């Protein structure tokens, strides 16, 4: 087995990122606390450089590397650029937040970058082992990040739960993958697909494996009934980390699901098996997520349940089983990441030293304290609820369209009913901000760049909503070229 230079071309962004993590890791040792800005700048520059390299090397076709272990297709390029943007935005939002909580250290940045690398590997994996490698790199970095605030009991508890349940999920997934290997004799995704298509696979074993694989994916996405970790982790983790967990990894998880369920196990014979499984997960997630979110008084917990319901919607797109549906799901996840960034960014913007603005009541009367913050949050909440003209509506629209197109009209009606319930708790935030008098009267202190980015983020929810065509077309093209 030899490697040629052609093998390295598609992997450039990953290599660059890995090299830079090592540089940052070492360089940070020589920086004093007051010079930490250097690490911050290097991290952002690394992400920007990766984005440039990914964009420059993007090709409209599919390229394989390392003997088919790794794939570079338009879907992966698009998702990776979204990941860089999300991680970059997360760093900008959380700068003063982490600084005030003693987490503004080298570890934070290197762990974030390692997590990013894990996502990139997941997105570009073309082999079950590569997928697993990426997933574990991401997960381990996230476990450490959740526990980064060492003296916080809640964080430690969250990290423990995340780790134990995450390990369980990885175990399930691996067990399922081993069955797939047993049935098909390969872990190489196109190979698995072609053997199934040729009828050379043992369907009983394959189905047995499929159940475990879907359960593993359900865990990673946080879909009901594998959602137990989500509220605790979202709640317990420092908000900066919650922001990271709830945005960029969802993009990677989307790619993960596409690679496994669609590319490897997308055969018609298997599709009819996993479609009803996802249907159950989706309906249960939308139901439990939306209903439980109503009862929450902690915003981070509420958003955790809201994420669960959004993942249900995402699954709707995937289970429609058409390119149309997959691109709708991709659009949905991109929009979700945009909204999640802004919402958690807002929590951090309103937090200050020794105070977390994570209770619903902390948003009371925000319109009195800062009309602009309230307006941005209003846009984000209506977008989450899926009310036009915000972008969240188009995300729901495209997924529902795919579902109706697939002939599942009843599923669309169910989804619509639950999004009505969902609207209630997003509306509650707007209600608190606009209709109530403020309890907390401290001036809002957030740094200028973060504030600017927050404005851009909130307005993006509106502007992309007024002109959503390009992003939909982007997702559509990426999926069409990749599958």
């Amino acid at each position, binding site marked *: 087995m030899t490697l040629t230079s052609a093998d390295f071309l598609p992997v450039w962004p990953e290599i660059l990122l890995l090299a830079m993590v090592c540089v940052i890791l070492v360089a940070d040792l020589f920086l004093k606390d007051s010079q930490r800005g250097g690490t911050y700048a290097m991290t952002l520059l690394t992400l920007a450089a990766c984005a440039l390299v990914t964009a420059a090397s993007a090709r409209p076709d599919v390229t394989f590397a390392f003997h088919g272990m790794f794939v570079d297709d338009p879907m992966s390029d698009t998702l990776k650029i979204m990941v860089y943007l999300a991680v970059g935005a997360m760093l900008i939002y959380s700068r003063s937040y982490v600084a005030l909580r003693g987490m503004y250290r080298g570890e934070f940045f290197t762990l974030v970058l390692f997590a990013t690398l894990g996502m990139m590997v997941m997105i570009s994996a073309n082999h079950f082992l590569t997928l697993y490698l990426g997933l574990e790199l991401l997960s381990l970095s996230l476990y450490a990040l959740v526990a980064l605030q060492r003296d916080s009991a809640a964080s430690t508890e969250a990290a423990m739960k995340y780790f134990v349940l995450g390990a369980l999920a990885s175990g399930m997934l691996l067990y399922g993958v081993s069955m797939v290997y047993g049935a098909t004799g390969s872990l190489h995704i196109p190979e698995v697909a072609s053997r199934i298509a040729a009828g050379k696979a043992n369907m009983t074993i394959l189905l047995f494996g499929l159940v475990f694989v879907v359960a593993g994916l359900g865990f990673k996405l946080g879909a009901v009934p594998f959602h137990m970790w989500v509220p605790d982790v979202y709640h317990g983790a420092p908000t900066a980390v919650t922001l990271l967990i709830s945005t960029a990894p969802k993009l990677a998880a989307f790619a993960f699901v596409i690679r496994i369920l669609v590319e490897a196990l997308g055969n018609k014979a298997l599709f009819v098996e996993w479609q009803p499984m996802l249907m159950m997960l989706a309906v249960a997630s939308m139901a439990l997520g939306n209903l439980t979110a109503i009862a929450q008084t902690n915003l981070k917990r509420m958003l955790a349940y809201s994420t669960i319901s959004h993942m249900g919607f995402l699954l709707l797109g995937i289970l429609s089983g058409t390119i149309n549906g997959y691109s709708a799901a991709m659009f949905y996840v991109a929009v979700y990441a945009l909204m999640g960034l802004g919402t958690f960014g807002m929590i951090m913007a309103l937090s200050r030293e020794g105070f977390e603005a994570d209770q619903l009541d902390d948003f009371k009367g925000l*319109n009195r304290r800062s*009309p602009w913050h309230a307006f941005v949050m*209003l846009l984000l909440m*209506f977008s989450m609820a899926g*009310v*036009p*003209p915000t972008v969240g*509506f*188009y995300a729901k*629209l*495209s997924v*529902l*369209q795919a579902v*109706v*197109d697939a002939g599942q*009209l009843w599923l*669309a*009606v169910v989804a*619509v*009913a639950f*999004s*009505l319930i969902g*609207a*209630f708790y997003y*509306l509650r935030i*707007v*209600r608190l901000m*606009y*209709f109530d008098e403020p309890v907390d009267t401290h001036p809002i202190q957030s740094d200028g760049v973060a504030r600017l980015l927050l404005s851009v983020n909130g307005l993006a929810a509106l502007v992309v909503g007024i*002109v*959503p*065509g390009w992003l*939909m*077309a982007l997702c*559509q093209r990426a999926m069409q070229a990749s599958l």
Partner: protein
Amino acid sequence: MTSTPLLTLVIWVPILAGALVLATGSDRNAGLARTIALIGALAGFAVALPLIAGFDPTAHGMQFVEFTPWIGRYNINYALGIDGISLLLILLNAFTTILVVIAGWKVIESRVAQYMAAFLVMSGLMNGVFAATDAMLFYVFFEATLIPMFLVIGVWGGPNRIYASVKFFLYTLLGSLLMLVALLYLYQASGGSFALADLHKLPLPMGVQVFVFIAFLVAFAVKVPMWPVHTWLPDAHVEAPTGGSVVLAAIALKLGGYGFLRFSLPIAPDASHALSGFMIALSLIAVVYIGLVALVQTDMKKLIAYSSISHMGFVTLGVFLFERMGMQGAIIQMISHGFISGALFLCVGVMYDRLHSRQIADYGGVVNKMPVFAAFFMLFAMANAGLPGTSGFVGEFMVIMSATKINFWFAFAAATTLIFGAAYTLWMYKRVVFGAVANPKVADLEDIEAREWLFLGVLAVAVLWMGIHPAPFNEVLEAPVSDLLQHVAKSKLP
């Protein structure tokens, strides 16, 4: 015709003016915000005027058509166009916006910029609803109006505003989400088009038509509102500030009636015919039963709210008679109701600003202190009761006449409104305006000032003009109504 995108201006001038008003920020600049808002509202009306000049009442189909691809992925287009029905509603809307800005001029003192901006944005969005000829564009505008209305009720409303605003939002959202599913189904059935013209032509089997009809019915019935999904309206009206009530009554309720004419009837004509008996029954229940409910109200705003529901029953009745005069009457009734209910809410607002009470029992003998106001109030009360010579008479009379042709008992039931309407309106009027001065607060009342003169005077002219000379309205409605009836008469069963 010039190529000026008039409809785009009609939609976006108020919205941009709203954004500008919002940019004036805090209440320190309240004066500036008010001025910009007024200019914006006037500009919004001014750009709507060329529509009258350029409108050809004899032409069939849509006029001032604009078309720009919007979301290519789903073949959704920024497609605009109006016929006589839309024209009247757009004008009513642009006109009402000016009144609302003037009505809120002094009364609203906190967060002025946000208040004014909400109304301007809403005005633009409503124009968008009436001008859209692409179903998804319609839906986007239709839904987007919820956001400013929600804020208006919740921020500037009365004591129970939060309950009312959330109820308003969720009720209307429930309706429109089902409509969304129906639209997606039609999109698929039509092979990928949201254009209204395509959906109108699309043949559909009966079962599907009934499903589509019911999904639309939920959306529009909540907006109209029809009995029994009307319960959000009294709450929303009572708690909303005066401007909110006016826009809600004058414009927002028309979205439902307009939706029936533009969506339900032409897209599902066979189901509309099949279910017309059901619709007529619901309409008559609204007319009679809600009229009786209005009789026992002790809160003036609630009374007018129930009276609105009862009068809107005429609209749905007229629409589902499938008869030219009835349908024209229904549309005339929509416009007239916009003037009258708007005026009545403004009258209550005038009193509320002075006394901070809406209870009938707190008033009495107002005429002694506010003779000019009492005269205006009298006119609008009479119009609400359907006095000939006022706009309230025209629409109701046309609908009743038309109902007589179909079935005497429909007409009989509908005609009871002339009695009940007179009863609850005039009884309220008597208790509030006449009699001895009820309490010292009433004794301190001062008559209306120039600003109030202005909006009540303009509305009085409108109500009388439409009552005495309704011909121009009918003329504009002739073509679209006959087209619609012809279209609906043909079966769309495959």
